[in-house]
Structure formats: structure tokens, C-alpha cells
């Protein structure tokens, strides 16, 4: 294949730009052969090289007193005391989930789990952030159905509890669903192991599933000479094997304890190519690999296919020479077979052999570090300022508050997500303190009093209206949710889901969002330890809402000192922490009742946000409050209702009219406005004064707005009673809305 001509067509199919090709020739000092071109094409792809986003990602705050591992490894790690680390990362599997929802989501879960145990950490929790088109469309329902089943099918089988997540439905995701999965793991600080290849002559082992033609990018494979060889038999769809992953996870964690493993990495994106080059690059070494030694599932596979395959559930290990046996034994115990496919060298090159014949030779750094880096042009979209205006006079009459209230509760964006999370095992592991749907995910750490809280959040609508502030709001909300269970935010990760970065306005959204995440994380003191970027999420030039999903991990000193959104005591006072500003911009109310997505995103003052979060963490630790729930989609009214759901209580509240909207909309703005930095807590009488006093000294506005009790939800605004419903009626709307929609007939047809 060396003599295969590399013409423009071949370059196009490999997605390599002319200047990139020149750089390749310069780096290796000659014309690459097709195999070498393949290596560059996957390692220099957007997904692996971050060529469009890297310059921006560099601006994120990645250090802090607790940070043990920042971006650059398979996952980030933060110190949580007692010599332990929380290891976590988020990954997307958006496009595969559109092609084949079940397998796409399942293999997405598999990939991020490997990233975590690759670090020497035992995965203890999963969360997911999902985006679909409107549930009124069969396509969205079909994808939603498949994705949820796939997420559950994989995680349940391995026995990692799914303890939280978030789901939005919006037309902008109709052709580009988002599946972002966060995995949290636990490791002893000293057990953390890196994905680096050290020590000349050390053997390189392959273990796990056999390599097939799965996931080899169709376009890069379409080259003429392959077509005859293996025409129809090249599906891009990867199929997950959770049982194999479970064996790999247990075996790898066990083999790492032998001390015979010097470096380990999973084969995810770009498979063997990425694992061999990244490991030797990190170790400042090189690697010789005999590709025919790679266990193969299909016949007639050529080196190109073997190196680019994205078959799932495969790991690469560098073993301390002389200790091969120790490693083999552990794998055999788990009915796995580790195959030596190569050795570590000092050549600084990845050299591939086929039956001893050198078929490719590339400097490792050329693949991993010298890739193209783009400062792509950015420009604010022409329509940006326009959509930030909220033309109250042009959106029709203000809706009847109670009708709006019931409609909002039934909106899939707000309604209970139990249809989804009841398909996820959240009790396995016996560490899950807060059940899904009641708070941020909270998991205790056995053998210590501590616990970890995790939340993933992003309101894409806000990011569409204002990517900078929207991203800050995402950080603030994720961190706020973690604070609402009493945990101190200690680290963050993020998954940047955007359209085509070659379009200046998309690149602008990306740049602004990263700037927003950076500023918010600096202000709230949350180091970013890793993340993922998913670009080109668009169909027919229609991009998704900019969706920078933010995951924040928080630490609880006492895992039992936590609260949920649920009221607990009859007659307790309901207190609103923060200001009710009545901002309707980008609200679910506007989208639902006025088919309008416009207006300024809610204001955010990060110092006030931090004061609020610190306050709520303190009063939860001091056992002063019964429940805490932040105000998000649907505003104060929905937050009050949700605080009653899954409890025996109703609520009666009376609030002042917010001034953020014109008189005609004042009441709905008061009830449904989505201002940031607000938390509704419930407090027993004996603690009320203490709570109000702490709020006062923390300079956090605190207003007693009502009492827990009764069997109705009654919300008055300056005496008038816009909302007065039987709680069980409201709860039924909220609880059953999604399953009602999902019980409709489905077809596979798009």
C-alpha cells in the first residue's frame, strides 16, 4: 500500500487540508503512505486534536489546592482528604447516538467508564446530560427511548449507579441529540496511574475485546482499493459489550495493585493509534507494534483497519519487563487474555510492523503535539442583539397564571424524569444517599464520614441568547445544585457541544462560552480538571443551541448531613434566599405560553452567587434547614411545587410582585421568571431566626414567603391568589407527563 497515490481525493476523504498535508510531509520528511496518512487523519481530527478549541481551552482555570490531576490525562482528579481522590470526567457520544440510539449511548457510557478506571479509580457513579428534539415528534421519542435504554443497559450491567443527570427537549436538537455522560470514580492518591509508556524494552500488552472493523470512519475508508477488498462489511456502528467491560474493569483494577503495570490507557476515539501514540508521547518514548499480533475478530483486516478500528472494550498496558506473568495471571483469573503486541522504545517514534516488515514510522509528538492549531475567525451573529430584545407587546396577552402553572409542570423540560431514571439502577453499591429526582446526586464514601455530590447542568436557551452569560449561568447552576445538598464545590468538568467551528458565529459562541466558564469558575473557585469538546453538531446548516454542559463535584464532610428538595415538616417556614427579579428572558414560560425564545439571559452577580452558596452549605451543615431547592426552569412557582412533590405536604406562599416585567406580565414574571441565584429552603420555627440572621450577616436577601402544609399549592402575589390548586392534581401532571407521551406508538422510520 506504500505505492498508493495520495491525491486530492484521498486527502479529502481523510479530511486533511492541503496545508495540513504539507505539515505532515515536513514533519516526517517525506510523503506519508496511506497507513501513515490514516494515523494523522484520526490524530489530527477535531475530536482528538482539539485544533479549533485548544487555544481557548488553555484559558480555563485548571489549578487549585485540591487538584491532583488537571486536563491532559484520561480524567481529572481532586483531593478529597483521607488520602483519597475523586476522579471524574465527562464525554459525549452525540453523533453515534443519533445513528443508533441504544448502542451509541451504551458505548458512550462504556468509554467514559474506561477513562475512569484507566486512572486506577473505581467508578462509583454515573450521570448523564441528554438533549432531544420535541417529544411531540416520533423521531425524538424513538431516540429518547433508545438512548435511555442504552445508558441503563450498560451502566446497570456493570453495576455503577446512575445517580443523576438532566434532560432537555428542544427543536434545536431534533437532528443532533446530545448524549454527555459523566463518570465519577474513587482512588487512593498514591494509586493513581497515568497513561504513559516508560522504560525501553518494556512489553506493551493488548487486552479486551477483539478488534473488528467497527467504527472505522466511513469517509476515510472509502478509498478505492479497499472497496473491492471488503465492500459491504464495514459498519460504522460500534456495539457495546458491558460484560467484557466489567471483566476489564475488575481485572485492570486488580492488575494495577500488583505494581507491575507502568502505564495504561483505554482505546477510545482513534483506537490503537491514539493509545500507542499518546502513551509513548506522554512518556517521552517510542513504541514498536506488530499489528498482526493484535487479536482480530474479522478476517482479512489490513494494518490500516487494525490501527483505526474503534472496537469497544479494549485496553493497552505497558508492563514492567519481567513481571509479565503476574499480569497474565490476573487477566486469566478473569478469563481474559493479554496479548503482547509491542515494546517501548526510545526512538520517539511509533513504528508499525506487519509480519516484521516496517509498514509505518511516525514521530509520536508529530501525531500528538504538532497537530494543527487554529485560531478560527469569530464573529458575533448578526441576529444576536435582536434575540436579546424581549418585545412584550408582540408576544400576545399574558397567560392565565394557573393555566401556565399546570402547563409548565407538564412540560417535558420540567416534568418528572422518572420515566428515564427508573430505568437506571441507582441503588447498586449501597452508597446513593439522594435518589435521582430529589437533588444533586449524592454518594457516600464507605470507610469515611464523607460524601460526594455531583450535578450536570446547562440551559442551552440562555447560551443561545448570550453564550458568555449562559455559560456562566451553567457553572453557577451546577455549583448551586451541589451547594443545595450541603456540599462544597471542589472541581468541575465540562462538555462543549457546538455546531461547525468553521463558521465564525459558531466559533464565537464557543469562544464566548469558554470565556464564561473560565470567569465563573475563577469567581466560584472551581478548577476545571478536564472535559470534552463535540463540534459539528448541526444538520443542514442548522446548529444546536450552544450547549456547554458543566459538571461540578462537591465534597460533604458528613454524607448524612444533607437535604433534598423535599419539604419534611408540617408547618415549617418557607424562605426564599436571593432576589425574585422577575426576569422572563429565555424562560420556559415564554417558550411554552408565547412560543418565544428571546430576551436577555438572566443577570448573574458571581459574588452574590458565591455568598448564597456558602450560606446554604453552612446552614445545611449546621442542620438548620429541612430542604433546599434552587429556582430554575419555571421559576419560583415550580420550585415551590417541586418542594411538595413526593412528600405528604402542600404549601401556601405569598410573595411580593417582582418588578422585572411590564405590568401586564408582572404576575407571571413573579411566578415564572428564571432569575439566577435563588434557593427556596424550609426551616423549622426553632431555627428560623438563626437562619435569617446568618443570611443577614452573609448579605444574602432572605424572605419568609410561606408555610409548609395542607393539601393544596397556594401562591399569592401581594394578596391576590393567581395559583390555588390541589397538590395531588399538580403532582399528577408533573409526574406522569413524560410517560404519557412515551406511551405513543413508535416506528423506526425517521
Amino acid at each position: 500500500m506504500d505505492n498508493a497515490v495520495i491525491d486530492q481525493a484521498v486527502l479529502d476523504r481523510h479530511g486533511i487540508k492541503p496545508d495540513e498535508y504539507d505539515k505532515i510531509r515536513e514533519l516526517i520528511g517525506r510523503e506519508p503512505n496511506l497507513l501513515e496518512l490514516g494515523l494523522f487523519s484520526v490524530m489530527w481530527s477535531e475530536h482528538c486534536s482539539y485544533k479549533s478549541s485548544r487555544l481557548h481551552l488553555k484559558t480555563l482555570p485548571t489549578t487549585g489546592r485540591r487538584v491532583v490531576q488537571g486536563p491532559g490525562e484520561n480524567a481529572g482528579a481532586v483531593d478529597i482528604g483521607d488520602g483519597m481522590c475523586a476522579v471524574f470526567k465527562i464525554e459525549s457520544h452525540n453523533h453515534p447516538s443519533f445513528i443508533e440510539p441504544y448502542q451509541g449511548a451504551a458505548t458512550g457510557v462504556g468509554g467514559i467508564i474506561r477513562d475512569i478506571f484507566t486512572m486506577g479509580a473505581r467508578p462509583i457513579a454515573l450521570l448523564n446530560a441528554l438533549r432531544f428534539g420535541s417529544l411531540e415528534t416520533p423521531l425524538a421519542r424513538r431516540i429518547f427511548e433508545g438512548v435511555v435504554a442504552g445508558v441503563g443497559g450498560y451502566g446497570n450491567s456493570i453495576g455503577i449507579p446512575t445517580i443523576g443527570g438532566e434532560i432537555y427537549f428542544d427543536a434545536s436538537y431534533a437532528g443532533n441529540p446530545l448524549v454527555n455522560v459523566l463518570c465519577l470514580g474513587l482512588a487512593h492518591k498514591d494509586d493513581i496511574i497515568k497513561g504513559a509508556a516508560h522504560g525501553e524494552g518494556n512489553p506493551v500488552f493488548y487486552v479486551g475485546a477483539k478488534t473488528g472493523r467497527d467504527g472505522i470512519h466511513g469517509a476515510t475508508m472509502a478509498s478505492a482499493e479497499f472497496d473491492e477488498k471488503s465492500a459491504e462489511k464495514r459498519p460504522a456502528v460500534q456495539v457495546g459489550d458491558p460484560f467484557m467491560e466489567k471483566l476489564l474493569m475488575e481485572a485492570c483494577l486488580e492488575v494495577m495493585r500488583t505494581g507491575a503495570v507502568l502505564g495504561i490507557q483505554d482505546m477510545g476515539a482513534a483506537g490503537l493509534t491514539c493509545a500507542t501514540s499518546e502513551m509513548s508521547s506522554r512518556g517521552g518514548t517510542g513504541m514498536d507494534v506488530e499489528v498482526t499480533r493484535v487479536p482480530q475478530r474479522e478476517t482479512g483486516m489490513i494494518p490500516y483497519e487494525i490501527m483505526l478500528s474503534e472496537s469497544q472494550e479494549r485496553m493497552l498496558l505497558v508492563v514492567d519487563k519481567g513481571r509479565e506473568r503476574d499480569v497474565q495471571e490476573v487477566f486469566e483469573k478473569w478469563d481474559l487474555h493479554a496479548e503482547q503486541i509491542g515494546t517501548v522504545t526510545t526512538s520517539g517514534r511509533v513504528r508499525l510492523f506487519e509480519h516484521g516488515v516496517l509498514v509505518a514510522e511516525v514521530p509520536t509528538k508529530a501525531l500528538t503535539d504538532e497537530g494543527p492549531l487554529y485560531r478560527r475567525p469569530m464573529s458575533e451573529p448578526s441576529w444576536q442583539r435582536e434575540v436579546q430584545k424581549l418585545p412584550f407587546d408582540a408576544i400576545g396577552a399574558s397567560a392565565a397564571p394557573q393555566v401556565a402553572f399546570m402547563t409548565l409542570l407538564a412540560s417535558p423540560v420540567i416534568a418528572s424524569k422518572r420515566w428515564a431514571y427508573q430505568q437506571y439502577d441507582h441503588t447498586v453499591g449501597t452508597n446513593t444517599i439522594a435518589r435521582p429526582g430529589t437533588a444533586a446526586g449524592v454518594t457516600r464514601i464507605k470507610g469515611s464520614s464523607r460524601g460526594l455530590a455531583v450535578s450536570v447542568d446547562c440551559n442551552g436557551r440562555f447560551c443561545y441568547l448570550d453564550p458568555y452569560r449562559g455559560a456562566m449561568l451553567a457553572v453557577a447552576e451546577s455549583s448551586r445544585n451541589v451547594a443545595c445538598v450541603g456540599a462544597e464545590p471542589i472541581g468541575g468538568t465540562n462538555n462543549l457541544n457546538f455546531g461547525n467551528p468553521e463558521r465564525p458565529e459558531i466559533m464565537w459562541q464557543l469562544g464566548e462560552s469558554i470565556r464564561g466558564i473560565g470567569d465563573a469558575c475563577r469567581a466560584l473557585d472551581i478548577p476545571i480538571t478536564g472535559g470534552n469538546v463535540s463540534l459539528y453538531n448541526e444538520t443542514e446548516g442548522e446548529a444546536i443551541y450552544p450547549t456547554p454542559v458543566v459538571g461540578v463535584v462537591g465534597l460533604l464532610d458528613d454524607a448524612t448531613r444533607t437535604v433534598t428538595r423535599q419539604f419534611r415538616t408540617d408547618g415549617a417556614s418557607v424562605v426564599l434566599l436571593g432576589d425574585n427579579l422577575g426576569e422572563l428572558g429565555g424562560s420556559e414560560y415564554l417558550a411554552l405560553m408565547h412560543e418565544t425564545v428571546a430576551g436577555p439571559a438572566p443577570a448573574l452577580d458571581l459574588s452574590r452567587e458565591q455568598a448564597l452558596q456558602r450560606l446554604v452549605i453552612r446552614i445545611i451543615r449546621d442542620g438548620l434547614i429541612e430542604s433546599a431547592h434552587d429556582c430554575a426552569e419555571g421559576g419560583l412557582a415550580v420550585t415551590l411545587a417541586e418542594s411538595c412533590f413526593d412528600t405528604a405536604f402542600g404549601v401556601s406562599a405569598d410573595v411580593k410582585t417582582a418588578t422585572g416585567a411590564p405590568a401586564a406580565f408582572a404576575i407571571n414574571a413573579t411566578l415564572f421568571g428564571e432569575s439566577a441565584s435563588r434557593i427556596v429552603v424550609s426551616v423549622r420555627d426553632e431555627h428560623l431566626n438563626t437562619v435569617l440572621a446568618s443570611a443577614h450577616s452573609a448579605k444574602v436577601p432572605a424572605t419568609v414567603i410561606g408555610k409548609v402544609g395542607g393539601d393544596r399549592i397556594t401562591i399569592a402575589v401581594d394578596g391576590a391568589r393567581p395559583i390555588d390548586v390541589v397538590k395531588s392534581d399538580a403532582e399528577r401532571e408533573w409526574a406522569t407527563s413524560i410517560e404519557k407521551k412515551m406511551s405513543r406508538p413508535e416506528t423506526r422510520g425517521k
Partner: protein
Amino acid sequence: MKFAVVVFPGSNSDRDAWHAASQVLGEQAELVWHKDTALSGADAVILPGGFAYGDYLRTGAIARFSPIMAAVSRFAERGGPVIGICNGFQVLLEAGLLPGAMVRNRGIKFVSRHVHVRVEHSDTPFTAACRPNEVLELPIAHGEGNYFADPSTMTELDANRQVIFRYVTPTTSRSRDGDPGEGGDISDAANPNGSLNNIAGICNRARNVVGLMPHPERACELALGSADGRVVLQSMVKTFTERLTHHG
């Protein structure tokens, strides 16, 4: 007493059972690898939840061939108490240590939530500490918990009082605090998976082998939402200590 918790390659609630027995109840507990052939002096055996061999075929179908299962059968034949939880129940069915079989859940979806089960008989080593008709709130997490047996087997199960747990409606009063917690009624709505006659758990004729789909070992601490499952493990301890006092 000493619990043996069998570990199949795809077990995922093995550590949960171990934790409940050793850390919560303070008894001895040992993880026993499925390739082992002896139970090393265990007084009770727990087959834990999980997906023993991935269970793509039929849940528990492959696990029954594991070397340890021979030892488990012998232990059971000699009257030793064996409990199969979730996947463990499925393994016991496939191994023929309990009658019947599991079919996919009625709704074909995996179901993970808390349910209420009524203790039908307290004369097994796993319910000895329960009050008559006590109702327990326990988590379930399975895709194949839809219990089936042919009519003649069903008649036998009833005749021999072998149905030990049934899915029932929630009780008004939480089961553990004083009140017997009646009000837990059998209804289709209370049946999470379509099991015949709301069956959540059964025992063998000798009553020393019990299988159930819900996870008592995941409900032994209030911090986890329910401690109702603790009574199941406590029953084993109770039975064991009583045996000792009788024979000793």
C-alpha cells in the same frame, strides 16, 4: 456467624451483600470466587445481584455451571441456608434449586425503584425475625423479574406455603415502627414486573433455600432510604444462633 457471598464475574451487588453482613450486622462475611469449589465453613450462602455472565442469554443461565455451584447445591441439600437475591434468585431457578423461571418484565423495561413486599411466611431462615405479614420497603433493579411457573407448580407452591414475598401496595404506617403495617394489599398496580400472583420471592420445600428479586442488602441503613431489608439478614443470624443453642 459466617456468610459466604459468591462472586460471579459479573456480580455487581456482591460487595453490597458483604457490606450489609459484615459492616452493618457485624457478622463474619467472606467473598467466595465462583471458580472455588468449597464454601470454607460458611453458615449461610448469599448469591448476590448482578449480571453473572453478562446474562445476554438468560439471566443466570451460564452461572449455574460455575464450579462453586456444586458446593452450593451440596450445602443446600444438607439444609444449609441459601439466599439468592435478584440475579442470585435467577441463578437458583436456572440451577433447579428453586422451581419456576424468570421472564422479561411485563413492560420489557429495566425497573429500578423502591417497592413494598409482604412477608407471607416467617418460618424460613430469612424471615424468622419478621412479624406476620410485615411489609418491607425494598429497592428492585432488574429487567427479568417476571416470575413464571406452570399451574401444577403454582398449586404446589401455595400448598407448601413456598411463596415467601409478594409485591403489595405501600402501607400507611412505615413497617418497622411498632405497627404491624397491614394495608399492604396485593394488586396489579403493586406488581412492578408482571410476576404471577405478585410473587417477589419463594423458597424450596425444605424452606432453607430462598430467592427474591428485591434487594434487602441494599436497604439496611436509613441513610440509603430504607433499613427494612436488615430484618432479612437478622433472620439468618437469629436462626443460626437458635440452632446453636438447641444443638449446643
